[in-house]
């Protein structure tokens, strides 16, 4: 009986400016193999299916348990974490590509730093440092805490940006993740005190008005974050702030 194998067809790129090319690798099946462990096999022995010696495929990964978000790739045309994609359940040739909405550093490794810039731009934190002890914050009821917890699981992986038809190189849209985080910061009574600054940051070009309600984001988010609920709610918040400013200033 022929040995069971998995064929990975990988989209490669030497550096951010060079052309892309494809290479295929055949990896013997092992129980519990996932895309990252298979990429590690390739790193150990970078020989293509045709027997040609090549460079090791570069990729990003850290936690190996779908909580850090760094190994996000497009596998068989759909974005997801590579570390949680088991070889089990994959048939035929598996295509592995870097995300298309982020600059490629090399091979499957992309630079997601724009998502972190958006967090800074939209003040996605709660300022509590001061010259004196501010004391305990207001109490939040457990239901609200639980709903907020869903949003706090965002790992800035970029799946939602990759799947969003409004995020691309000819639009400035920052994507849904930041809208989820602005929702999270604003639902907390202490965070709410600075919510206007965050809403202001989401008003401009690239902000929430550029969402086209395709709702792919909520479908692909590996943490099942209710992004479309945040989009609806924050859309209302920005609208109300705008109307308030329009008539009260």
């Amino acid at each position, binding site marked *: 009986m022929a040995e069971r194998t998995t064929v990975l067809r990988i989209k490669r790129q030497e550096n951010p400016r060079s052309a892309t090319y494809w290479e295929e690798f055949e990896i013997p099946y092992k129980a519990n193999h996932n895309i990252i462990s298979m990429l590690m096999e390739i790193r150990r022995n970078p020989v293509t299916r045709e027997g040609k010696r090549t460079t090791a495929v570069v990729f990003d990964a850290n936690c190996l348990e779908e909580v850090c978000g760094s190994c996000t790739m497009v596998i068989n045309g759909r974005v997801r974490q590579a570390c949680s994609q088991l070889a089990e359940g994959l048939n035929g040739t598996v295509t592995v590509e870097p995300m298309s909405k982020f600059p490629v550093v090399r091979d499957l490794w992309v630079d997601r730093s724009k998502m972190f810039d958006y967090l800074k731009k939209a003040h996605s934190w709660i300022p509590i440092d001061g010259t004196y002890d501010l004391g305990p914050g207001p109490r939040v009821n457990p239901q609200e805490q639980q709903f907020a917890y869903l949003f706090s699981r965002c790992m800035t992986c970029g799946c939602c940006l990759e799947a969003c*038809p409004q995020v691309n190189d000819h639009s400035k849209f920052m994507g849904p993740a930041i809208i989820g985080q602005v929702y999270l910061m604003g639902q907390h009574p202490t965070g709410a005190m600075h919510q206007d600054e965050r809403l202001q940051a989401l*008003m401009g070009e690239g902000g929430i008005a550029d969402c086209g*309600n395709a709702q792919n984001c909520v479908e692909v988010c590996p943490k099942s974050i209710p992004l479309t609920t945040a989009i609806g709610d924050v*859309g209302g918040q920005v609208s109300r702030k705008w109307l308030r400013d329009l008539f009260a200033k």
Partner: protein
Amino acid sequence: MAEDAALATPAVSSGMTADERHWLLRRLHSLSGIVPIGGFLFFHLFENAYVLHGGGAWWKETEFTRTLPFQVAIEALVLWIPILFHAIYGLVITATSSPNVGAYTYSRNTGYTLQRITGILAFLFIGFHFFSTRGWYYATGVESTYARMHSWMIDPVYLSIYLIGTLACVYHLTNGIFTFTITWGLAVGPSAQRLVNRACVALFVVLAVVSVAILVAFRAPA
């Protein structure tokens, strides 16, 4: 010193920032789709539905839309300017999209793509429809009588153009009502959005049936 700063009247910035302009344009685009354009589409289907009572009734009941005081000013303010704005800015928005229904085959993603396709179809159809009816009247004085409309609707080519054009407009409006409720934060959670979506699909079916019935009714000889 700090106190002075606190007591000083806040600087009132004059003029709009680029961000505020962007927001305003997006909100006006969203709003104009409902009022006046969406509102007019409802009214337009309603007035033309009189053709179901015969060509005579239709011509009589639509009389007042041809004899408004300040006719041109009203048409420009309520129709031409809003539609031109919504259409042109809609094309600008469409140009920033990168549809991916092939890879992500969710029903909402299909709706997103159809919203853009029907927008382009509506743009072409409304242009054609306006210039061949009202525009033609302003240019040549030829009125869009029952006989004229009838002669078009019995022509399979015209009928097909009208079927595709009106159904595209009706889809675009009903799907747009759904996204409008999200845009303005009226339907927030998934079950509220599911409910509104179902209502909009039902509305699409009703308006589609009414539109087809109107077009077909024009095929009856005068």
